[in-house]
Each structure stands twice: as C-alpha cells, then as structure tokens.
C-alpha cells in the first residue's frame, strides 16, 4: 500500500532505511528540522543543516523513488538561549523558497519554559509573515498536556494563523480531543516507550475517527522504527478496518493537509 510518512528525520537514518521504506510502499516523506542530540555551537551549524535538508537529502531519497520534503526551524530543545535562537531564525527566510520546503517546523515546546515560549511565538510569527504551514512538536511525557495547551493558546493569541494550516504532532489519548476540537490537525507518532504504539494509534482512530489525523514514525537517531507506519497499517487491517480507511489515514489525509503548501506535489 502506498503511503506518506509525514515526520521522519532521515539525516539520522541510513540509506538502507530509505530502501526498506520504499519497499514497504513509502512514496513521500516530510522531514522537520530537529535537535541533533547535542546543542549546535553556532548558527552556522544550522545553516549547514538547512542546506542538508533542502539540497542533499532530497537527492538521497530520490534514489529510492521517495519524494523528500522538509520543514525549517530551531527546535524547542535549543530555545533556552533566545539570542542564539533568534540568530538561527534570521537564517530561515532565505531557505523558504527552496522547492521542498513546506513550512515552519517542528516548532513547539520541550520543558514549557518562558524562553521556549518566546522562541515559539517568534516562529509562529515567522510562519504568519511568510504564509507558511506549521508543524508543531508537543513536549514529552509529563510535559505534554500542559505544553499542548500552551502551544494552542499561543497560536490562537497570534491571531493570524488558521488552525487548519497547523498540524500538532505527537498527540496521545489525553491531547488528541482538545487538538481536534480547536480545529487543528493531529499527528500520532508511533514510537517505542514514549509515544503511541501502532495498537494505541488504532484505538485512537476507533475513538476519534480519522478526519484531520495522520500517523508518522518520527524515525530519528534514537530508538525508533522507520517502518512503524506500515506496521500500524497492518494493525488496522488485522482488526478489520477497510483498506480505504488506512489509505485515508496514510495517504489521503497527508495529501490534503500538505497540499495547502504550493510546493507540495501530490504523488501520482
């Protein structure tokens, strides 16, 4: 079954992963900018990273027939130094017209601190000024519920962002309903230990439906599974959900949301 993995950190994955994803039916993916596992020592480090995301990684993906898109930002884990973060934000506009850039992301919060909020607000404003889609990272574990509320309030307070142009990622059972109720799109990340399993994602679909929702693997440098999305397909089909339901979750919905960016070209 063809699918889109709308949240993968391919700079951290091997070429073998591209091959396995292509064999499993992946036709496109989107890669948000994120934390490298260590703090970068200069804004120039981000400049090089943004070049990697916009120039090099699309070529690597294309070798396996996968269309590569990206989102640019400074992630909330490196937002505790607002002066540094603003230097990085100033680099972003020059990359926004690259053909694979879909918007600003993954922005959000990590520990729900005041500096993280400042940088979140600056990047919401950047998205608004440049008419960009937004991909939101919500905090981990005990910080997720509070952080999700703060993020939604910050977007609403900005006043110029339509909720339908924002996808709030890493939702779980305690955050999915408020996200959908406020008109945002919701992403479920299939990730060992700290986010959703394929089974729980299937449960959430059965509870809240599959409108304005997608699933992703968020495969990165940590323990994660680049084939988590097809494994969730398998779980949904095993339960008796029709193939059309799965296709909507993993292809139709991503195409619908991402097509709000003029740079996204729906796979044939």
């Amino acid at each position, binding site marked *: 079954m063809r699918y889109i993995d709308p949240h993968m950190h391919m700079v951290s994955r091997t070429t073998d992963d591209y091959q396995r994803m292509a064999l499993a039916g992946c036709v496109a993916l989107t890669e948000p900018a994120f*934390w490298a596992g260590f703090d970068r020592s200069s804004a120039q480090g981000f400049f090089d990273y943004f070049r990697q995301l916009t120039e090099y990684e699309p070529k690597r993906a294309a070798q396996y027939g996968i269309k590569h898109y990206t989102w640019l930002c400074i992630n909330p*884990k490196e937002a*505790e130094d607002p002066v540094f973060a603003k230097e990085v934000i100033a680099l972003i506009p020059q990359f926004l017209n690259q053909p694979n850039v879909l918007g600003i992301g993954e922005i959000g919060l*990590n*520990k*729900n*601190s*005041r*500096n*993280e*909020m400042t940088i979140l607000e600056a990047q919401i404003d950047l998205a608004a000024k440049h008419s960009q889609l937004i991909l939101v990272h919500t*905090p*981990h*574990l*005990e*910080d*997720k*519920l*509070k952080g999700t*509320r*703060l993020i939604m309030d910050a977007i609403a307070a900005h006043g110029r962002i339509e909720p339908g142009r924002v996808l709030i990622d890493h939702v*779980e*059972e*305690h955050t999915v309903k408020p996200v959908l109720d406020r008109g945002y799109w919701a992403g479920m990340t299939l990730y060992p230990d*700290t986010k959703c399993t394929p*089974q*729980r994602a299937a*449960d959430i679909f*059965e*509870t809240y439906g599959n409108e304005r929702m997608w699933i992703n693997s968020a495969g990165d440098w940590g323990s994660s599974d680049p084939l988590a999305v097809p494994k969730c397909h398998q779980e949904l089909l*095993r*339960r*008796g*959900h029709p193939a059309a339901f799965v296709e909507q979750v993993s292809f139709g919905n991503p195409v619908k949301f991402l097509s709000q960016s003029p740079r996204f070209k729906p796979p044939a």
Partner: protein
Amino acid sequence: MSAPTYTCPMSRKQVVDAYFLEHRAKLLDLAAFLDRLERADPQGESAEDFRVAALRKAVAILDDGKPDRARRVLESFSDPSTAPIPKAPMKGALGAYDGGAR
C-alpha cells in the same frame, strides 16, 4: 437509553484472542519490576521515588470500572500546572510529574 457504539471492528472474543497473551506478559513485566524494586537497596532513601508512586496511582485507574483509562493514566502522570516555568532544568522528561521539585 441509546445502544452502545462499538467502533472496533473485532468482536470482544476476537480482541481477547488477539491481545490477551501480549498484555498478560506486560502485566508480568510490571509485577516483576515492582519485585525488583523491593530487592534493590534503598540506600537510605525512605520515601518512594515519585515515579513509582505515580505508577501505583495509575495502576489503580486500570480497574476502577470507569472508561477512558489510557487518557486518565496519561493525565495522572502529567504536570497539572498551567504557567510556563522560569527556565528549563533539563532537556529530557522523566515520565511522571515530580510536584514541581525540579
């Protein structure tokens, strides 16, 4: 009174057949974890770790007869405060709210 809505396409028997052994194993993992804790030297710590206390509180939710257990378990582990904190104390998360100790 309206009839209940069943949104899982499997029958209840099929759900048990498909998932019972997996969750039996997970329950045993939890039991063994609690046993392992008791075999470990507390090294003078008299109070239970806040994460274990949160786990025990969450376990009680599983069998309280009310719906939305997964949502309520996640809420029980969550920071209930609403204002941003002054400064991030670390990058990671611990899995349970420590009452604002950090």
